[in-house]
């Protein structure tokens, strides 16, 4: 009897995968809630794809436990796990039509022909490819293939969906469009989704939570906003969004940039003496030296103005030569300040983030 739940929680317990001496996954643990859209975000070689493959059953870990709901699946072969998977290069079967690709998982489950045809039609409709059933795979564009791959992964109504950088082969505009479509699909169908990407913007756009992974370990697992506003360390701050870093000294609960104590909204979370001040370009404001009473102030010289359409970037060199940048929306009526002219920037204490270089 088919269960009526549409999604399952995932429990990853102490999973380790080593290749020779390197650990692709180093004792990772993660609890994913039922119906959650969680992104595994990290640079290449971080282990994110390895973890996804472990979830799918294609890579056998050295040890650990994977549960889908209350079913332990660690020892189950891939064809028994009942998860949907979308690969980076789609892996559509070129010797079958689009309909053939979509029907494949249904036929494997012994579903009657009439129902197969009906579900294939519905799936095509869901990804807006009505009428494409009889096309050959090589007749489709990249975006169309991606949608067929997606449809094939969900047509048998799996309760978990795994996606391995599915949009990386698409061009920018199409990618951004598909990000929203995938998000809508998730909201509509509600299955637990584990999404892998190296594109932090994509992660921020689509996820309920983001798990940042590097060198086979999770560095920080948080909601997108918390990850962006409260990164745990320099790696996270550098990986998510753009920033410049200024070295600061932390002693006695305060952070000192040179001799100057920074105005902070809360004391630094870590006590390591050598840490960094995170400067997000969009958090900085151009101020007059006089009106910066309760801000952290940085004075320097304008170096370069870079126009980028909806916003612009202004590179500034501080007194000691360190470069920082400020981002301003295009709506600002100000003309570009001349290179060489002096400039003062202000940062609110609430936006002043101090991070250690590595999470201890």
């Amino acid at each position: 009897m088919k269960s009526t739940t549409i999604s399952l929680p995932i429990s990853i317990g102490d999973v380790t995968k080593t290749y020779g001496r390197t650990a692709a996954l180093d004792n990772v643990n993660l609890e994913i809630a039922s119906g959650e859209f969680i992104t595994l975000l990290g640079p290449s070689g971080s282990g994110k794809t390895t973890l996804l493959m472990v979830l799918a059953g294609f890579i056998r870990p050295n040890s650990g436990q994977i549960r889908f709901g209350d079913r332990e699946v660690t020892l189950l072969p891939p064809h028994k796990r009942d998860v949907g998977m979308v690969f980076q290069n789609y892996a559509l079967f070129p010797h079958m039509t689009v309909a053939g690709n979509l029907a494949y998982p249904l036929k494997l489950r012994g579903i009657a022909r009439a129902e197969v045809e009906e579900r294939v039609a519905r799936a095509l409709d869901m990804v807006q490819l009505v009428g494409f059933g009889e096309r050959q795979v090589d007749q489709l564009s990249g975006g169309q293939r991606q949608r067929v791959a997606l449809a094939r992964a969900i047509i048998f109504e799996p309760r978990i969906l795994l996606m391995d950088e599915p949009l990386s082969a698409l061009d920018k505009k199409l990618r951004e469009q598909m990000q929203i479509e995938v998000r809508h699909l998730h909201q509509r169908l509600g299955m637990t989704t584990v999404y892998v990407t190296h594109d932090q913007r994509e992660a921020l756009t689509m996820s309920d939570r983001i798990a940042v992974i590097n060198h086979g370990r999770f560095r920080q697992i948080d909601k997108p906003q918390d990850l962006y506003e409260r990164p745990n360390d320099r790696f996270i701050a550098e990986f998510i969004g753009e920033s410049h870093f200024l070295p600061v000294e932390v002693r006695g609960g305060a952070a000192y940039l040179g001799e100057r104590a920074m105005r902070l909204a809360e004391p630094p979370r870590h006590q390591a003496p050598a840490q960094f001040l995170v400067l997000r370009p969009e958090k900085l404001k151009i101020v007059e030296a006089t009106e910066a009473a309760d801000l952290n102030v940085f004075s320097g010289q304008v170096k370069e103005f870079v126009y980028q359409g909806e916003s612009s970037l202004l590179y500034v060199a501080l007194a000691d030569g360190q470069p920082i940048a400020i981002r301003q929306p295009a709506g600002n009526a100000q003309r570009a300040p001349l290179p060489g002219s002096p400039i003062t920037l202000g940062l609110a204490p609430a936006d002043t983030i101090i991070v250690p270089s590595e999470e201890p």
Partner: protein
Amino acid sequence: MPAAAQPALTEHLAHHRAGRNAAELRAQDRAEQWMLGSLALPGLLLIGIVALAPIVWLFWLSFRTADGMTLAHYERLLHPSYLITLGSTFELSFLVTGVSILLGYPLAYIIAQARPRIAALLLLLVLFPIWTSLLVRCYAWLVLLQRRGLINTWLSDLGFIDGPLRLVHNFTGTSIGMVHIMLPFMVLPLYASMRAINPDYMRAAANLGASPVQAFWQIFVPLSLPGLAAGIVIVFVLCLGFYVTPALLGGGRVMMWSMQIERNVSYYGDWGAASALGVVLLVMTLGILWLLGRVIGFDKLTGGR
């Protein structure tokens, strides 16, 4: 929420779970490896038992006589007649390889440069001899080169010669036949390696001031060397051990190493001598192949055949 705080909760229980699965996971891994490996087993067994094991046996035989272990068979190989055989084997191999390079390089070059349709046609024509029976080709050369064969008949009819040329049942005929057999094996690897040469290199050479002839000798030929090396080794090694063509076109006047092996087995029943000859041939073959592997990389050898 920092990730470091997580494991503390379930660490205690986790150890048990992880340990248990580790053994089963390893077992599953091994079972899968065995299953996949066993797919190759039938083929490996067949080749191992039918082809490779006897070679080992021959190797052992080469050191034995009725009285025990000995180097006598190898010592006999130093006899002048064997040395002459070795000489003519190498002579033929060098000659055939050399001629194959001279004829094969231009052919490969043209095919590599031709338009796809013409190249496909030319390749087909080069492949055709490989798919034709060896014996048919030897027969064709016998017909062509005999004393009253086609070539002699034509040449004397056209008045170029007075008496028939001795073109077959000798070294000449054997060489011609061998070149015919070996040429495709020189052309194919050469062609493959020439195709892989990025046309930008020649364009760059021309742009930098090289004349077409200079660009060819200074840029193209060096870049085609891996394919040339592969072709040379394949042809040379094939020539060393070749039996059929010298046996048919040599008329008994050309004694090749392989024919000595055959004679010792069929005629004299002298397995000691035959196996010693065989081992020497194998060692020469493997030695030359190993040399090539060192020069161009072993993975190219196995993939490029």
